[in-house]
C-alpha cells in the first residue's frame, strides 16, 4: 500500500518553547519568596563555633542578630583589632544593646514580642568577657531567649 510512504521529508516538529520563560519565572519567584536577602553588611568577621546538639532557629522574623568579632580588614585602621559588637549596620558598644533590643521589639508585632529570640553570632576566638557583657545587657533588656549560633560538627 502506498499509504505508508517513508520517502517524504518528515522533520521533527519544533518544540514549542514559548512557555519556558514562564516556567523559569515561577522558579524565580519561588526562590525569591523562600529565601531571604542578606540584610546586613558584615563589618566584623567571625567563624561561629561548632557543636553537635544544635537546634534549628525558626521564624526568621522573630530573630534579632548580634554579631561579635574582629573588625574586617577595611575597618582595622579605625577600629583596631579588638573584638567588637555589630548591631544592624554599625559598630556598637555594650551600652547600645539595651536600646537596640527595645527598638527591635517595638518594631515587631505585639503578639510576637514574647517570642523574640536573640541570636548571638560570635567568633569562636572571642573572649567570654565581651559575651558576658552582652548577656548582661540582654538580661537588662528582658530579651531572655537567646541562641548561640553554631555550625554542626561532622
Amino acid at each position: 500500500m502506498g499509504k505508508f510512504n517513508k520517502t517524504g521529508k518528515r522533520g521533527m516538529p519544533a518544540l514549542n518553547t514559548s512557555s519556558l520563560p514562564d516556567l523559569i519565572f515561577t522558579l524565580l519567584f519561588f526562590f525569591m519568596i523562600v529565601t531571604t536577602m542578606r540584610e546586613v553588611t558584615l563589618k566584623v568577621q567571625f567563624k561561629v563555633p561548632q557543636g553537635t546538639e544544635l537546634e534549628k532557629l525558626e521564624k526568621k522574623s522573630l530573630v534579632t542578630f548580634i554579631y561579635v568579632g574582629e573588625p574586617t580588614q577595611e575597618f582595622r585602621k579605625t577600629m583596631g583589632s579588638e573584638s567588637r559588637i555589630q548591631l544592624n549596620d554599625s559598630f556598637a558598644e555594650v551600652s547600645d544593646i539595651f536600646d537596640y533590643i527595645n527598638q527591635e521589639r517595638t518594631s515587631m508585632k505585639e503578639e510576637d514580642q514574647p517570642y523574640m529570640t536573640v541570636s548571638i553570632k560570635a567568633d569562636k576566638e572571642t573572649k567570654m568577657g565581651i559575651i558576658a557583657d552582652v548577656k548582661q545587657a540582654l538580661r537588662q533588656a528582658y530579651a531572655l531567649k537567646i541562641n548561640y549560633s553554631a555550625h554542626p560538627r561532622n
Partner: protein
Amino acid sequence: MARGNRKVPDINSSSTADIAFLLLIFFLITTSMDTDRGLARRLPPPPEKDQKLDDIVVKERNVLVVLINAEDQLMVRGEYLKVDQLREKAKEFIANPYNADDLPEKHMKNVPFFGDQRVTDKHVISVQNDRGTSYQAYIDVQNELVAAYNELRNELSTEKFGKEYAELNADQQKAVRMIYPQKISEAEPKNYGGK
C-alpha cells in the same frame, strides 16, 4: 509608498528564558536559605534591686559546678576534667543512678506515663567561666551538657516507648522532660586573673 497592512515582525522571544535563568541564578547566589542553627538558652531575668543575692540556698550535693578558666581548662567538683569526659560526669550527676550521697537528692514525683518516680528535680548545673575563656570552649561545655541531657532523655524514651525522644508526641516529651528537667545556670562571670 507601501501602505498596505504591514505586520510588525514578532520579537524573537527565545532568549527570555535565558534572561530569566540569569535572574534566577543571581537570586540563588545573593540570598541565603541556610537555616541558622545554634544552642538555645534561656537567661535568668535581671535581679530585682532589693533582692538579696543569697536568698536561694542550694544544697551542695545538688550543684555541679563547672569552672572554665582563662586557659580553657575545666574543673568539675574540684578535679580537672577534659571536655570529652564532661558528658559522662554530667549524666551521672543528673541521673544519680545509685543514689549516691554526694549526688543530687531525689524526690517522689508523679509523672504521667511513668507513675511515681524518684526524680532529681532539685539539681543545678552551674557553669562559671572567666572573662578570658574562649567562646569555643564555652560552647563546647554547653554542648556537652546539652548532649548529656539529650542522651539521658533518649535512653529513657527508648526504654519506655521504644522511640527516640524527638519522635515522641508532645505529652510524652513533657513527661520525659519532667524526669530530666534541663537546669543549666549561668553565673555572673568572674575575673580569675588577667585579661
